[in-house]
């Protein structure tokens, strides 16, 4: 059986199991509760491990990581150069690599080029530097139109770019993860790296917003 036929059989077999959903309650809270109790009884999950994962992304991993990378790039030209030539290594220097963020590329916004990140196929997102993605990033409206009408999408975020700016939309179709380095806002010359990091928002590191002074 050719690789193609095998894939076809395999997909059909998996899809068949999705028909269980007509026999399950629609409320996801009930279903997830039942799943956790089943997996615990079978020893397929340790609830304490579930807690640990939740806690990791609630308190240890989030957009503040990415903000630190951006602020450092703003104040340290040599770091910025390293970030541009090999973001994986440069972000690794700050110990901010990890699952869904092992192969990094930094996209520097300039007055002429504005970068925007999407995953049209699912929800790929640089978790170690930005934490978990917002719902809109994982939803059909953004996934469908970011590549087709980026200017229209940015308008819905209240960001209108002048005609002369070139927009580059990066569709995360592989395991490469993208971090937008927004433009440093004017009037922040005297701010410390920490103060600069505090200005950097999650949305500006996806590319749907600019950083305001």
């Amino acid at each position: 059986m050719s690789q193609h036929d095998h894939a076809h059989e395999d997909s059909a077999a998996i899809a068949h199991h999705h028909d269980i959903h007509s026999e399950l309650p629609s409320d996801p809270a009930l279903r997830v509760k039942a799943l956790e109790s089943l997996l615990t009884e079978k020893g397929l999950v340790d609830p304490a491990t579930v807690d640990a994962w939740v806690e990791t992304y609630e308190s240890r991993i989030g957009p503040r990581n990415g903000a630190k990378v951006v602020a450092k790039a703003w104040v340290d030209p040599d770091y910025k150069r390293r970030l541009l030539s090999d973001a994986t290594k440069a972000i690794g220097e700050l110990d901010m690599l990890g699952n869904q963020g092992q192969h990094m590329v930094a996209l520097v916004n300039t007055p002429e080029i504005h970068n925007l990140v999407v995953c049209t196929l699912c929800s790929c997102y640089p978790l170690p530097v930005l934490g978990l993605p917002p719902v809109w990033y994982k939803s059909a409206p953004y996934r469908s139109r970011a590549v087709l009408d980026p200017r229209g999408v940015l308008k819905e975020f209240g960001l209108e770019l002048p005609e002369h700016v070139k927009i580059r939309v990066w569709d995360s179709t592989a395991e490469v993860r993208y971090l937008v380095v927004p433009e440093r806002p004017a009037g922040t010359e005297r701010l410390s790296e920490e103060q600069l990091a505090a200005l950097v928002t999650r949305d500006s590191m996806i590319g749907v917003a600019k950083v305001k002074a």
Partner: protein
Amino acid sequence: MNSIHDMGGMHGLGAVRAEPNEPPFHEKWEGRAGGIVEVMTFPENFPGDRFRYLRETLRPDLYLTQSYYEQWLYVAEQILLEAGMISAEELRDGRAGPSAAKRNDAMRADAVWGFLHDRAHTGRKLAEGPRFAIGQRVRARNMQPDGHTRLPRYARGKTGIVTRHHGGHVLPDAHAHWQGPAPQHLYTVRFTARELWGEAANPRDRVNLDLWESYLEPA
């Protein structure tokens, strides 16, 4: 409009479930719904293409789950709401508002058979001749109108051969948006399955589409 209705070439939509000696209407209401939408009074000069366009604006999940005639109800409601012939309150209550005047020009039963065999159609005489000839290689333009169009996504940018010319026909892309019939020459274009789907497709198979002149460019 690149919405869920344009499903040519999609996978994952399940197996074809053909029902042996299937009745035209599975439940009584389906016949009533079909009948309402066919014989009701439409707004003045209502363009038929708009009916298809309004169905495309149905929310994607509803489009995939609601039955066919229920989607007709949605379209009929939109048409009458849009034209102000019914109000949202009237639709909700199923009762005419206090000031609503009753019309007496609805299609009568004895006119239905004639209506179903009426020969008004979308063909139009055109002054200038067709731009493309039978046998000519043409490419379906890579266009992404967010309004109504009859050029499916799977054929855009693909090259085929003109095999038939149907003369002038009303252009849905304009008609569906009250921009008049704007008739254009209509052609049947034949594409090889391999042009559409790559070399894994059967070498012998073909797909034919009826495409308006503005959809096409010389290849």
